[in-house]
């Protein structure tokens, strides 16, 4: 039987293997060295490579700024944002610097940094540690936004991200860290910019990422009993998006439901919906539906937080709605 690892361990293994593979790779961030990270993701690296694992001050701008400058000099930094929400305090470095490097230098230098950012809600941390930051970064040409959903994807996509020559924001959903799955021992890459069709079906296309895929799969099972075939697509790289896979699927099913954690307004569901209606409106048999969190900050109390996020029932309701046309 193939070996199983948690999503957290899969990321840790990818980091160890890339440190081993390439001496220009180093890690930096708050508590990532001695302690091995707030979520334990960088454990063991400092012990093996004390010069290549740096604990920093609480200085996200300096962390990302240093990453960018060193990347231009040929290093491959992997920085950690303890919570993705902290991207706000280094936003300039990502938006005005990392994303512009290759353009600014006309291709003579690039910015091969990876910013690992712990994203999403669900662990009762309230509004400063629970946000879904994808759309904050998806309007910035030059950046790559990756959102792995399984341990297998997490390891393979992190290795690809580190080896990629563009700046990658690598989102890790905190509720997935304990998720287990089969992960090959040896290093491997998963192609970026390529969506994965997780389930085949003829009637509805559901596009979902990370934790929302669970809801999609649960809804798909339920709908199967009703004779409705659901095709599930995980974009995996949210930006730049693999439009073709989504378009081909919706052209076949004629119905699209996007399931997205985070506020509905200007979320990636809006972009995917607009893209589909622009490109293949004539294939649509029903209006596009978005299932998202509410347009509110994430509250602390479990009752409040859970009310804000989508559930399987919301996904089912959206699917039944698009089937009614």
């Amino acid at each position, binding site marked *: 039987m193939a070996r199983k690892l948690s999503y957290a361990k899969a990321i840790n293994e990818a980091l160890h293997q890339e440190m081993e593979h390439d001496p220009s790779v*180093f890690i930096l961030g708050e508590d990532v060295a001695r302690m091995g990270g707030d979520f334990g993701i960088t454990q063991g690296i400092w012990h093996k490579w004390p010069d290549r694992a*740096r604990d*920093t*001050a609480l*200085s996200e*701008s*300096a962390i*990302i*700024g*240093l*990453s*960018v*400058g*060193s*990347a*231009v*000099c*040929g*290093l491959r*930094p992997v920085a950690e944002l303890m919570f993705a929400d902290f991207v706000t305090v280094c936003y*300039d*470095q990502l938006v*005005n*610097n990392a994303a512009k490097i*290759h*353009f*600014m*230098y*006309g*291709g*003579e*230098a*690039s910015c*091969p940094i990876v910013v690992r950012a712990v994203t999403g809600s669900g662990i009762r941390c309230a509004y400063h540690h629970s946000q879904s930051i994808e759309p904050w970064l998806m309007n910035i*040409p*030059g950046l*790559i936004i990756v959102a792995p959903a399984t341990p297998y994807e997490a390891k393979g996509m992190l290795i690809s991200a580190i080896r*990629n*020559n*563009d700046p990658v924001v690598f989102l890790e959903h905190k509720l997935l860290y304990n998720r287990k799955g089969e992960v090959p021992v040896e290093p491997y890459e998963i192609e*970026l*910019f390529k969506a994965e069709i997780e389930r085949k079906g003829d009637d509805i296309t559901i596009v979902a990422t990370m934790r929302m895929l669970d809801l999609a799969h649960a809804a798909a099972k339920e709908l199967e009993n009703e004779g409705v075939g659901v095709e599930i697509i995980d974009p995996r790289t949210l930006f*730049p998006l693999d439009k073709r896979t989504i378009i081909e699927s919706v052209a076949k099913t004629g119905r699209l439901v996007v399931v997205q954690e985070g506020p509905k307004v200007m979320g990636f569901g809006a972009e995917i919906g607009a893209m589909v209606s622009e490109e293949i409106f004539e294939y649509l048999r029903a209006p596009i539906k978005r299932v998202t969190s509410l347009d509110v900050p994430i509250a602390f109390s479990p009752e409040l937080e859970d009310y804000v996020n989508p559930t399987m029932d919301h996904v089912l309701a959206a699917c039944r709605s698009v089937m009614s046309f």
Partner: protein
Amino acid sequence: MALTKKRLLELYCDMVSIRKFEEAVENYSKNGTIPGFIHLSIGQEAAQAGVVGALKKTDYKFPDHRGHGAICLCGTEKKRVMAEIFGKVDGINGGRGGSMHINDLSCRNMGFNGIQGSTVVTALGTAFASTYKKTDAVTAVFMGDGTLGEGTCHESMNMAATWKLPIIYCLLNNQYAISTHYTESHPQKQLATWADGYEVPNEVVDGNDIEAVVEAVERAAERARKGEGPTLLEFMTYRWQGHFSGDPAAYRPDGELEAWQQKCPINRSRKQLMEIHGCSGAELDELDARADAEIAEAVQFALDSPWPDPKNALKHVYATVQVEDWK
């Protein structure tokens, strides 16, 4: 140790070429040939020429938005810098950057940045790379008195001081952040002392005295190369123009500009060359005329250069993805 006549003459030529370059840019900005807005460094030539002149070609330089002079001196052909400012295809960056974003990795001009305080943290990275790769390259980052208000300056100096990174913070105190005098936005009488809190050596330097600038940078570079960490140098100087070309600078008290013009860095070196080193006025005039000719040639090159192909706007966005053109 005083500079040799040869070195002072070179630096004099550098300063004159900055002045002439900026005057040409001002003309072609005012007559509408240069698109967008520009920031001129007339009056600040010594601080720019002195910093670049004291560094090696292999050192990393981060000029600021008022940095045409510094970047010309890093080693890029002036005509290609001029063409960039004109937005032409032969610009050193193909017209992608313009006045505020000129870079040339071949001489380690790492580029301007339109965001105050942004390169102050990027500079940590080039300095870190020097220590990681065990090279002797130092990083010089230009900043202004206004820049110091940005939080990134704190983050950068804190980290550079803790990790002993080879950085020289070159703070050109030209008195004003657009219209706000530095004493109205900072509690320190001298901004250099700001570094005391980080236990970073700092000096206040007469930024219009090329000799003082060169010597201060050489001291800081030596410290950095020996692994002793960063230095903050505050060069006291003055910009003769407004913040951008077109700003009448009505916020300055009467007589202030004239007082600083008396301290013109170029006249000062000229005087020194004549009085101490025995240069003749005619000899220096000849050097000035050569600078004039060089800049005239650069302007002609920029005027003659074609506009970039509009499709170039889609190039180089990513190293690994070609951006779609749906137009």
